[in-house]
């Protein structure tokens, strides 16, 4: 019968800084360096089994764990918001394992780990975006076999993707991909931007920030160095366009942000609010008021506090 040594404190085992062992960090760091050297190319890496579930950000978590240090300030968002449950859970993970300094302000963060959004506030040089990626292979829906898609990337054979997009146009009059909209990186690799809405695609192009992508379950890392060309695939007669709304954010009145829809009653009532919670709060703190702010405060969606 095996005897187990119990850690002194059951709830806090003595893990290495940022959870991963140093050998694993070296392996991930090597993959990251190759990823920035070949923008948009998916580098296979020895993704470790993590204490969080696959599909819940283990790729992004491994990258953040491999790059974070005492000088960093970490922001974690999910759906653009700092307070969504999985964002809270991942932030707690790094507070516990790396004693990480965390923040919600986009411009204060040195590392922003995200699922499904790019913040509205422009990113700066020196910042690192870490994307959680479920399906790193942009061609996977068209060709399920990795052995085949790897060849397609090797030979830059992207005709299948063009055909798929054109079929959309033939059927619906436009490309119907609304998120994880494929991009061409540095005129060489077609890349999955992760399931960010296509609204965010233009923010990737020539961004001053370093953008790193981690797919834990699929064991791939890829990257966009700062100032890298990122073009959303389109056709001359059907140019790429992003989502738009007929009304501004109900809370802060922003007309330039990505909006979430909130169902407010069973009579078809809707309210549209910024998906980027920090952006919305910042604007409200600056005195911007949306038409629904009073109602939202009354229904408990936001709290009114005295400045």
């Amino acid at each position, binding site marked *: 019968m095996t005897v187990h040594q119990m850690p002194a404190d059951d709830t806090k085992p003595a893990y*290495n*800084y940022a959870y991963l062992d*140093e*050998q694993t*960090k*070296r*392996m991930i*760091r*090597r*993959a*990251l*360096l*190759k*990823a*920035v*050297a*070949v*923008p948009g*190319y998916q*580098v*296979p890496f020895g993704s470790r089994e993590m204490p969080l579930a696959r599909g819940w950000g283990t790729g992004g978590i491994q990258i953040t764990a*491999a*790059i*974070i*240090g*005492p*000088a960093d300030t970490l922001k974690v968002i999910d759906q653009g918001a700092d307070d969504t449950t999985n964002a809270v859970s991942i932030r707690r993970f790094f507070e516990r394992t790396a004693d990480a300094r965390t923040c919600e302000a986009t411009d204060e963060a040195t590392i922003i780990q995200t699922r499904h959004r790019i913040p509205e506030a422009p990113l700066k040089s020196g910042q690192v975006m870490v994307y959680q990626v479920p399906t790193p292979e942009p061609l996977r829906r068209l060709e399920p076999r990795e052995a085949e898609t*790897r*060849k397609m*990337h*090797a*030979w830059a054979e992207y005709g299948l993707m063009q055909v798929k997009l054109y079929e959309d146009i033939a059927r619906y009059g436009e490309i119907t991909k609304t998120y994880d909209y494929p991009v061409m990186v*540095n005129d*060489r*690799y077609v890349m999955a931007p992760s399931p960010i809405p296509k609204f965010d695609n233009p923010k990737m192009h*020539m961004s*001053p920030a*370093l953008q790193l992508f981690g797919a834990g379950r699929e064991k791939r890392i890829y*990257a*966009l*160095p*700062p*100032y*890298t*060309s990122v073009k959303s695939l389109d056709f001359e007669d059907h140019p790429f366009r992003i989502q738009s709304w007929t009304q501004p954010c109900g809370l802060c009145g922003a007309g330039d942000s990505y909006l979430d829809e909130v169902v407010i009653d069973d009579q078809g009532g809707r309210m549209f609010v910024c998906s980027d919670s920090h952006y919305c709060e910042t604007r409200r703190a600056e005195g911007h008021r949306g038409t629904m702010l009073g109602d939202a405060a009354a229904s408990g969606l936001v709290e009114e506090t005295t400045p």
Partner: protein
Amino acid sequence: MPAETMIAPGFADPVFQSQAAFRALLAALSEPGMLQQVAGEITPPEGLATATATALLTLADYETPVWLPEALRNGPAGAWLRFHCGAALVDDPADATFAVIDGTADQPKLSAFDLGTDQFPDRSTTVIVQVAALENGPALTLAGPGILGSRTITPQGLRAGFTDELRENRALYPLGVDVLLVHGEGLIGLPRSTQVEEAR
């Protein structure tokens, strides 16, 4: 044991020193041509610059064969690398994950290293080129990912024809080696994606 007394120490605090060094390396390769500094906290073995030794301590281990010039391989640098990184030292440049060359040495050419494969271009060698200085030499103009417009670097002590080798390496893209120019505590990244021209 005499071997241990001969081998200079590595990182005193591996977790945080390697993290800081990695961020410098990541910045160097993601913004080619920008001069990055590593902390001068270690005493490198003879023949390795501080930045070279720091980069290898940060990245190399038993999974990454390293190529060193013969004199270094058989000297304290080789012993130091084996001891601290557990890395295998290889004879054939094409077997190396990391390599260290002298900027002025004729051989090996960049094309002698592992250039990766069509399906796995990431499996190429990262070549650390130790140069006489990173500034005040002849100007090279860089362009490509990581560079807004263009950027100029002025390293000293590169062999004749090295710019052509970098150009040929770029032509293989997405295959090719990735280069780090190193002197003292400074380093400049030249990944395969960077176009290099001699400035006029």
